């Protein structure tokens, strides 16, 4: 049974802040497919399309029949733990700072033997376990042996906390509290045990529904933040930048227009100013501080979440300029991810389908409820997921886009949703 994480003591300000040493992050090109699946929360291994043999470690030819037709397929992860070791010595600084460290050798029911990080609730070998793939602090997939039946606080496992970005006891900035989505995210974070949630609001004079309820939560502090205003971003970063553990950038401008339906570029500029330049301003001000605190004890800085849109993958013409701004933001978020990686800060990109809000009024269901989106974000932080496609529409678009982006483009051009 995992002991619940206690609220960590306040940091002694005299002590030096530890720097992040990442776990070994080198992987071969084929092995990166394990990471690609884990980034979306799936555990996949190569399966031979000719003889069905499951392969591990990742390879170029089937170890049984030599076929090159190996495809990545989801695995149940059911298996048996054959051996445990507790490391008291490691050659790598990341692990050396975190000893002792438990590892297991697991034989999957599907065949191969796997070396895994072992959850604290898994007992002596031999015992049944469930293997899952998670991203580690270096952003690469690692395999973890979980107990078949976890207990209530299993997310507080020390090893798992090193992999995940759990908001419990962490300090979070949500950049826009005036939208339904923003408010749902704040509620979900408070429920998940966040220590402090700073909630940005660009226009303090506007009284919006739900806002007062939010402000009454003891964990919540309202802060002025206008992403279109560089000074506003700088001022807030100066005030709280050194304390924020997780940034959730949900601020967006969304108007339903293509090219011909509105003259001029003012609205498109407003969308770009928040959706793209807003992210850039925020990243420049909060990014360095976040990176500096990524190894700051059990609750150090850990993640950056971007609210994008599934329209970032392929332009949805009736929301054409919005799609373009989200595509730009997506591209920038990839840059942010690369820059945050050396510090072990995870950048989580969220690609919802149409959200059930005022700007998608004319779209038919299914639409993502704000609360669903919020819990998808918290789940991603807890489970170490990097790319999130919440809702049925996003899932379907993703599948179509993966199958053939050109076909999807044609379907969307013809008015298909």
């Amino acid at each position, binding site marked *: 049974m995992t002991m619940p994480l206690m609220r960590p003591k306040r940091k002694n300000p005299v002590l030096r802040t530890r720097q992040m040493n990442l776990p070994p992050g080198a992987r071969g090109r084929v092995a990166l497919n394990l990471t690609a699946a884990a980034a979306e929360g799936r555990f996949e291994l190569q399966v031979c399309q000719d003889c069905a043999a499951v392969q591990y470690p990742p390879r170029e030819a089937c170890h049984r029949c030599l076929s090159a037709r190996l495809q990545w397929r989801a695995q149940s992860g059911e298996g048996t733990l054959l*051996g445990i070791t507790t*490391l*008291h010595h490691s050659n790598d600084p990341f692990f050396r700072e975190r000893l002792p460290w438990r590892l297991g050798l697991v034989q999957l029911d599907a065949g191969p033997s796997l070396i895994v990080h072992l959850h604290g609730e898994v007992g002596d070998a031999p015992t049944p376990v469930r293997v899952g793939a998670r991203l580690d602090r270096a952003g690469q997939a690692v395999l973890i042996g979980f107990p078949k039946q976890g207990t209530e606080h299993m997310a507080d496992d020390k090893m798992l906390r090193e992999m995940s970005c759990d908001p419990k006891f962490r300090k979070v900035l949500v950049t826009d509290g005036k939208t339904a989505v923003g408010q749902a995210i704040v509620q979900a974070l408070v429920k998940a045990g966040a220590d402090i949630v700073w909630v940005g609001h660009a226009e303090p004079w506007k009284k919006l529904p739900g806002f007062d309820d939010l402000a009454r939560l003891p964990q919540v502090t309202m802060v002025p933040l206008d992403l279109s205003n560089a000074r506003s971003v700088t001022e807030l970063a100066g005030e709280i930048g050194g304390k924020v553990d997780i940034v959730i950038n949900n601020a967006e401008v969304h108007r339903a227009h293509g090219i011909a339906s509105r003259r001029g570029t003012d609205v498109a500029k407003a969308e770009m100013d928040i959706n793209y330049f807003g992210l850039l301003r925020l990243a420049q001000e909060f990014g360095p501080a976040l990176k500096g605190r990524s190894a700051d004890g059990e609750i150090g800085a850990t993640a950056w979440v971007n609210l994008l849109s599934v329209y970032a993958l392929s332009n949805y013409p009736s929301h054409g300029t919005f799609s373009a701004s989200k595509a730009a933001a997506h591209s920038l978020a990839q840059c942010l991810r690369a820059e945050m990686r050396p510090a072990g800060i995870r950048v989580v990109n969220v690609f919802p389908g149409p959200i059930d809000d005022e700007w998608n009024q004319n779209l038919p269901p299914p639409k993502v409820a704000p609360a669903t989106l919020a819990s998808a974000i918290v789940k991603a932080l807890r489970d170490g997921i990097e790319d999130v496609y919440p809702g049925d529409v996003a899932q379907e678009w993703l599948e179509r886009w993966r199958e053939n982006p050109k076909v999807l483009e044609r379907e969307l051009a013809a008015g298909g949703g």
Partner: protein
Amino acid sequence: MSFVRKGYEGVAVTVPVTVPYERYSTKSAHWFIGQALKSLVEQSGLAKDQIDGLTVSSFSLVPDTAVGVTQHLGVSPRWLDHIPTGGASGVMSLRRAARAVQAGDADVVACIAADTNHVDSFRATLGAFSNFARDASYPYGSGGPNSIFAFITANYMRQYGAKREDFGRIAVDQRSNALRNPHAMFKKPLTLDEYMAARPISDPIHLFDCVMPCAGAEGFLVMREERARDLGLPHVLVRGAIERHNAYADDPVMVRGGWLVDRDELYAQASAKPADVSFVQTYDDYPVIVMLQFEDLGFCAKGEGPAFVQAHRMTHDGSFPNNTSGGQLSAGQAGAAGGFLGMTEAIRQLTGAAGDRAVPDATLGLVTGFGMVTYDRCLCTGAVLLGSSS
């Protein structure tokens, strides 16, 4: 009718050399290879040019291979092999060299294994040891082989009831042997109590289950028997030799090695049986592997390893002499040269050059190899039976 492989008749192994080990060295692998070749030349009385075959085994030689060594050392062999298989390189080099001299492709083959050890080179080697290690073992705690062999040891203990004390007997007796080997890195006796009290490294592996990486070289010459006799070199004869790679790949965790596949053929080549063996030089990266070899090479049945080590003293003068040089556990592991340690020691034992650690009346020695943990086990296994020439 199946084709029967040729024996190793007429092949002599001679001039065992050791370039003294150092814990850390600022020199490169080339230096150690050069000094090994120099010793081979000096002790054989041959001119450098008369050595017309060369095998090289080394990790730290990268990016060079055996080819680069020829230019570096100014030799022009007509037969060359690079055998980068670590712990199995001694047996594998001997097998290849033996065939070369039998076929006349080379007259005298120098087999050399050497590695340097810089302060950070062990860590650097681990992370880039193999593609599988990079992708599937090193990111898991970066314990190197310690954690892999911890699984194998833990599994063996659970399955066959072995205790840490049983592995301790192997380590303690090897240390006792090392005290009589001037080349051994460890000079202090080791008691079973000290073994048991050692700090844990990767449970159930503790400090004295691990080898100490160091720098050094080992080498020997392979030639036709009559050539060795003409040169007046004390030599041993190859009585049998086997190798096997990636055996029992479907075993989820290693409980047996490739020796088991081929051991009957090994003994048949030598017309011998396990009881005829005067001593064994087992590859000892970890004591559990020594125990597996006792079983897989026919000295006791699978699972009887613990009882076997309880019943025997494994010192040079004991009832079952094992690793009379101290083995890697007590002499040190000079990289790939660890795969040659048993070979040079066996030649010394069978040519009366083992000093005060000599096994009395030794006539037949077994040398094993075990190398290359690319993922969850060592893949290369090999064994050689060497007989005295008299």
